[in-house]
């Protein structure tokens, strides 16, 4: 009896559909044996299963796909299925299927055409219909293929690949965001990988041996506590820092600032007048074998906690990318201690001790990190000369007609012809 059979199939249809839904997500593929193993179809009746599955596929509730060489199915939600059944014609349905299958990556309209081997106008009509109905939408800000017209199912978030990951906003690399985060990360690494000393300054003039460059510093210390320094000591032991320490031992303040406690720099009890007037804050490198240089994981946690990225979540890989850029900038360097890969700031002594945000308040154009090592070539006019390559004596541009050298030497426009007066002697 056909009616009886139909009812039976309807029942099994519902049963099978529910069972399948229970057993996995929309993307799971069920093979024939999987379906039989659900124990919905009695006696593992393959013929019955075929009928049931056919019915479900006709209702668009099951989608047949190919897994390897065998056939497999995945389920589709009833709402989606309803969409499918609502399409006016097969072309529209096929186009929608293709777009649906492309998922979050989206699909190029030319690919749709090629895949379906349909005429362009048909595809166009279908897309127009789907767009007006709000089933699909054009993909905006595609970073991967910026010049292709792509479509994506409505209400679907484009994939990372298409958007370019967290560093992109509206299809553009968000350089401001990247830079801000870099500064944040850099400041974090800087403070965590170097020791902030409120000590007397370490960096004096360039070059020279220890003794010579240290000379100005004594003056600084002595200046800090002039009242306690006996004048005699200045002359006899002026070149020794230790000597001034003796003279200072009655003033505990100086001891503290000369050898600060381990805790955070803010805890340094040096009074304001000492630190502001004389003791310059400076970062010092940490001794070898330091185990707590910040790792990428720690940096990621910091950024997570700080909540600066309010609607983007950054994975550790993203942070790694950020830190790598800092490494390439030469601002930080990786350091491995006992197999733990941390990062530390380069040239700690030359780093600015103020945090970036604070410095930017005073100077909006400032850059973080140590300034480049001064260099003889770049100091001379030739290093930055735009016509350096064609500059040759006797040519159109030559050292004798150079306009940069006089300016560099402070001659500016050289005075016109020298007066012919005879020099007196």
């Amino acid at each position: 009896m056909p009616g009886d059979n139909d009812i039976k199939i309807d029942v099994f249809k519902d049963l099978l559909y529910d069972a399948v839904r229970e057993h996995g997500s929309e993307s799971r593929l069920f093979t024939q044996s999987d379906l039989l193993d659900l124990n919905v179809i009695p006696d593992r009746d393959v013929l019955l299963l075929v009928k049931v599955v056919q019915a479900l596929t006709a209702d668009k509730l099951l989608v047949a796909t190919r897994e390897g060489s065998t056939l497999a199915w995945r389920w589709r939600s009833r709402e989606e299925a309803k969409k499918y059944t609502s399409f006016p014609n097969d072309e529209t349905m096929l186009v929608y299927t293709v777009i649906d299958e492309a998922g979050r990556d989206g699909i190029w309209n030319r690919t749709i055409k090629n895949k379906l081997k349909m005429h362009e106008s048909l595809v166009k009509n279908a897309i127009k219909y789907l767009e007006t109905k709000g089933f699909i939408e054009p993909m905006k800000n595609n970073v991967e293929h910026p010049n292709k017209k792509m479509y994506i199912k409505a209400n679907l978030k484009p994939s990372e690949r298409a958007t370019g990951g967290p560093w992109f906003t509206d299809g553009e690399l968000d350089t401001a965001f990247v830079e801000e985060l870099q500064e944040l990360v850099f400041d974090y690494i800087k403070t965590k990988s170097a020791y902030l000393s409120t000590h007397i300054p370490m960096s004096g003039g360039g070059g020279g041996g220890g003794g010579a460059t240290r000379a100005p510093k004594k003056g600084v210390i002595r200046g800090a506590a002039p009242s306690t320094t006996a004048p005699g000591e200045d002359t006899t032991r002026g070149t020794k820092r230790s000597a001034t320490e003796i003279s200072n031992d009655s003033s505990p303040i100086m001891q503290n600032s000369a050898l600060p406690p381990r805790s955070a720099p803010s805890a340094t009890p040096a009074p304001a007048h000492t630190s502001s007037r004389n003791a310059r804050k400076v970062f010092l490198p940490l001794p070898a074998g330091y185990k707590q240089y910040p790792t990428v994981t720690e940096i990621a946690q910091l950024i997570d906690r700080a909540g600066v990225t309010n609607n983007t979540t950054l994975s550790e890989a993203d942070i790694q990318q950020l830190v790598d850029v800092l490494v390439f900038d030469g601002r930080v360097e990786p350091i491995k201690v006992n197999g733990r890969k941390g990062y530390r700031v380069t040239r700690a002594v030359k780093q600015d001790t103020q945090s970036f945000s604070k410095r930017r308040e005073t100077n909006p154009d400032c850059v973080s990190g140590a300034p480049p090592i001064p260099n003889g070539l770049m100091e001379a006019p030739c290093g930055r000369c735009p016509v350096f390559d064609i500059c040759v004596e006797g040519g159109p541009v030559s050292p004798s007609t150079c306009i940069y050298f006089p300016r560099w030497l402070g001659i500016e426009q050289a005075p016109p012809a020298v007066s012919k007066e005879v020099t007196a002697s």
Partner: protein
Amino acid sequence: MNTINVTRPVGELLSLLVEEFLGELPARIFKVLLTRGRLSAPTLAQYTSMTKRQLLHGLVVLQQHNLLHYKVDPESTHMTMYEANPENAYNLIRVGKTLEMVDSTFGAAAKDVMRSLLLSGFTRISDLVAAYQEQIDEASKATRTEPDDEDPFAEPEGVNGDAQAAKKPGLVIKSTAHLNSVICRLVEAELIEVMHDKIFLTHHDLVKGAEAKVMKEYFPTGIKGNKAKVELQEKIADELREDRSKSKSLKRKLEQNSAAAKRRKLFAEGGLNGAPEEETDPLLDAKQVIRINHEKCLVDLRNRRLVQFVNDMIGETTGYVYAVLLKHLTKSLPRCRTDPLIDISEEHIEQGKGFVTTDEILDSLKTAVDLSLGLGKESRDKFSSRAAEKVQHSAPKKKIILEAAVDGDASADEDEHDDGDGSDSDESMADGDFKPAQANGTKVKFADGVAGDYKLDRPTQLKQHLLLLAESSQRFVRHCGPNEWTVDFVPLIQTLKEAELDSIIEQQCGRPGLRLVRILRSKGKLDEKALTNTALMRKSEIQQTMLQMLKAGFAHTQEVPKDNKADVSKSFFLWYCDTNRSLDRLQARSYKSMLNCIQFLEVLRQKEKDVLSVTKRLDVKGREKDVMRKEYYDRYSQFLEHEKRLFAQMGRLDDLITLLKDF
């Protein structure tokens, strides 16, 4: 051999340098020799259109300053062939730096002797003694006379700003015995070496000569087989090494003398102040001809440069420790670069023992230096002393038994823990006599109870600095054994070169440029897209920066066709960086920039010709300020100022070139 590739700007630069230092006549000859190569005197006369008398005069001047190679053709013609010596000509620019270096390490007296040597080229010791004797005599007659006419050298010394300072206090060399001892010291430091006939040969001639000699002596029947070839190479190397060691004959003689050891001891204690030495030096053979050993000077200059690098990268206290370490390590290092022909197998021969111990460094540190400076402090449990003190044996020439190293490690650990158990109060008290102030300071700190447990004893502090150097990404030192330290110069210098290049890139193309170059350096060849992803930069920005760098020679492109058709529109374009190529270009740029400086100086001289001609007059010279009209004097002093700046700039450029070429 540090050979200069004499390109056109380099040739011009060198002949201008010679002109600057020795005058126009030698410079003209030198220029012809540079451009034409090896020439005999008659042809030289033809090219320079000089009379024989002028020519010979010029050649002698050049010869005297070691700016010529010559070779007498032994077989047929007995013709002497001359060739320019561009290396030594370039060394002229370094004169001021060398003197300054000698001044700071050996004192004013040594500097004075070096200056005399630089002024007169190579000199017989007796002549030098006679010259100084004359000065001493004159000085004793109470007339203060300057050493002699120093016109050509006034400028380079002016760069250092201390030329006048040396002159003012009168004579630095008090007696001939003093002179003798100064020379002894410089000979021992290898800064002065003995001349011998082979010095005048070009490197090529030297090798050829050695080869011919070896062939004649050992392989009269020719070479057969690979083994014989290797043997030949070794024999040649031996021969060359022998030639090279000839210049050290005076030093060897000094070392044999027992007085040398004694003097060295005295020297180590207080000689640095340039105080008159004990007059126990052996009298030097007056017939020996001596000259300045630029190769050894370079070693010292390299040390300074490395210290400066450490100052920049880590800090000055660490830099000072490094300076002491380098001084010890390079004491018997004769030159910066090894000769691939000579130093084939037995590198160790002239390298000394190849490492320095912590104690040696400790013994040479100035007591005034506070080692606690320049390093951060954290509680001890945050450090892994095992990781810090990891010993790296990777030196090819030095093997340490593994167990020994492990033992050393363990004991070092224990030491550290001992310190940590509060016993350091005793220790720093024990330090008391060594450095009273420190102990004193510590005590107060204990009373405070704040930073007490950070007070480390001096050896530990020293070790911390050394370990920091070893841990640095630049690998300034290598911890090659328990408490033994060495420096791998070759990779370190490469790092320094790259750092220099990076700094130039950063200044020229900004930080984005630097970022891109470093990405390419570490990842190899990349296309634009990969570059965008790694650099987190906008495509347009990258294109702009890369173009700029391509033009400046910091980056290069390569086109890789997709298929056999090699369709340009379908090809991949890869960016890459060839660091050595960039460095070569940088060197060429520096030479040219230096040439521009010296040429511009010439322009200035032309412009101020009337003023300068006045200052050359005998009645004006020496008292320009009193004699010249104010307006003219102002112009003159301004010119001197500019001249000084240009020379200083050339010195700065030389820093770069020396690094790229010689270190």
